[in-house]
């Protein structure tokens, strides 16, 4: 096993912090893939091998998972991934025409990257910004409805770096690091929950016992009214000894389910 990793020391530290948030390491798979894309711009085979080591799985599992998701790129993409939505709300607002313009203007087909490596053009499914249609995202940041003219301006600004503060390079998804958290340790939460569960079951058991007593009382009264036979006050305990039932209620073994 190699002692050096493709992922940088800082990325590795952040990766371990993310893994610690989950009960099972594998849950950090997607967050770690995003992290690797933040470092490299796309999901490289070397990064996938490191992720596999971090999560205790194989690189094939990482690739197999990542390939399911549109945002995880297992081949290089431009520094700016421009996504043009053409789904229904955008279609009704000229999205196909915008995409056609974008393809001509950039000289690439949808899915392709410009020769200078700055722009990858994507036809996207609904991005949930439908009141600003046709909807466009750059590196998954909304840039509002675009016309052919504004699209060309946008591309110019992306290439000149004028939008860099607002739109980081492809791969950087969430620039806000988690600062709080795990302020409550697991043992404490477990103890609280156990106490709460015990309190809840105690309340439930008390309610059940009260109901059983009420039923037994009613049955006894009914029996006394009907006959002189003294069988009605026979009460037997169930398995966990918390409740009592009268024989008459045996066809409703769990009084709380009614």
């Amino acid at each position: 096993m190699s002692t050096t990793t493709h992922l940088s020391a800082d990325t590795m530290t952040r990766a371990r912090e993310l893994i610690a948030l989950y009960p099972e390491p594998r849950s950090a798979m997607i967050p770690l893939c995003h992290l690797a894309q933040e470092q490299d711009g796309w999901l490289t085979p070397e990064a996938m091998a490191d992720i596999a080591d971090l999560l205790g799985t194989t690189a094939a599992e990482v690739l197999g998972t990542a390939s399911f998701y549109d945002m995880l790129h297992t081949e290089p993409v431009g520094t700016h991934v421009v996504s043009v939505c053409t789904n229904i709300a955008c279609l009704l607002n000229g999205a196909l025409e915008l995409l056609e313009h974008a393809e001509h203007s950039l000289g690439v087909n949808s899915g392709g990257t410009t020769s200078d490596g700055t722009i990858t053009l994507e036809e996207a499914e609904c991005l949930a910004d439908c009141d600003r249609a046709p909807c466009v995202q750059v590196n998954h940041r909304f840039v509002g409805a675009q016309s052919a003219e504004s699209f060309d301006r946008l591309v110019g600004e992306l290439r000149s770096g004028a939008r860099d503060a607002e739109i980081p390079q492809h791969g950087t998804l969430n620039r806000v690091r988690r600062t709080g958290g795990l302020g409550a340790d697991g043992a404490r939460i477990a103890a609280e929950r156990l106490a709460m569960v015990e309190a809840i079951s105690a309340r439930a058991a008390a309610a059940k016992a009260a109901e059983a007593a009420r039923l037994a009382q009613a049955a006894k009264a009914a029996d006394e009214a009907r006959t002189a036979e003294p069988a009605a006050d026979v009460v037997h305990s169930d398995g966990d000894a918390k409740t009592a039932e009268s024989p008459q209620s045996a066809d409703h073994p769990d009084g709380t389910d009614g």
Partner: protein
Amino acid sequence: MAITDAPKIVTSRLDHADSHTLERYLATGGYDGLRKALTMTPEAVAAEVDAVSLLGRGGAGFPAGRKWSMLRKAPVTYLVINGDESEPATFKDHLLIERDPHQLLEGVLIAAYALQVTQVFIYIRGEFALGLERVQSALNDAYAHGAVGADIFGSGFSIDVVVHPGAGAYICGEETALLESLEGKRGFPRIKPPFFPAAIGLYGEPTVVNNVETMSSLPWIIVNGRDAFTALGEGRSTGTRLFALAGHVNKPGVFEVEMVKTTFADLINAPVLGGGVRHGRDLKAFIPGGVSAPWFGPDQIDLPLGQDEVADAGSMLGSGSVVVMDDHTCAVRASWRITKFFARESCGQCTPCREGSGWLLKIMERIESGRGREEDLDLLLDVCDNIAPGLTWPPQQTTICVLGPSIPSSIGSAIKMFRDEFLVHIKEGGCPYE
């Protein structure tokens, strides 16, 4: 029917540019609901939600309270928030996530307390980069404020919340696919019934999965009480609800309106809401609840915005998104694009959905490009019938999840309502709208 002056339950803060900050949130009653909930017993908080029969705002309209009560007997649970909003033309949760993340967090914490879960995961659609940053910032601030973490507001209740990004897959909005994704796997939906997430969920543990809008309603419900909530709406459709209006309207956007009291006509035409069909054109058709829903025509515009009312009329309120198509819209092209979406987003597990969506797309492309044959219409319906036998509504299911049976909705509607347009495409060898 009319637009009522119902209170804004989830959008009250959105007039403020800084609605996403802790300062604004605290200045507008923020975390009062959580403080109040922590003085009640967990069961009492859950009962409050039960009583309002809050129909989940995700798409299935499953009562949140009933989802919760399925869990009462099982102690160790997770709460997972479904913020993977991807149903085409639905953009209400996007708004709540970006513009009022503290309200979402407060609702989440109230639910976590009511359910006594051990950990919370907020799964947010990967494409919401700003939303992820806003919720993470809000969470950081909430930890510093003592609203989350150890011993919340001195109540003795502790919980940790994790913000989890998705990575681009429509199917992960399906709750069992979302759980698979959260476990670090491909987003393949799980077979259910018999075991819903309430029984076997995240890591095999009992889990509640609730939608962002459902959670965002909880602070108001706890502060104002169930009676104030149930006084709004009618029947099972209580309270207000967010509707995302898009397509050919003058003022597309997200509107919070009282359920049942408001109609589709109000939503589309009222000056304070949609402002009417664009360019003074006539309405051709509208989709009442996401692209999985069958379409409605102009004669159904006076239907109220209520779950049961829309279901009785043969469609669904679904995700609360309404798409307006004017009389210049090509019905073939619209349903072709929706079919393309499903073909692309089918996860590939089940044959009827994976193969059916691909064949439907090929036939629809052939018709839209003018190379169609008259018998293609029957062929389309036959393939649809193989995915959802009988083409009934609600559809029969041949697949693990409901993505498959949702595919025929748009094709079936388009052929039923606009058969002539298909025939013009076929006979004249092209799209008459181009």
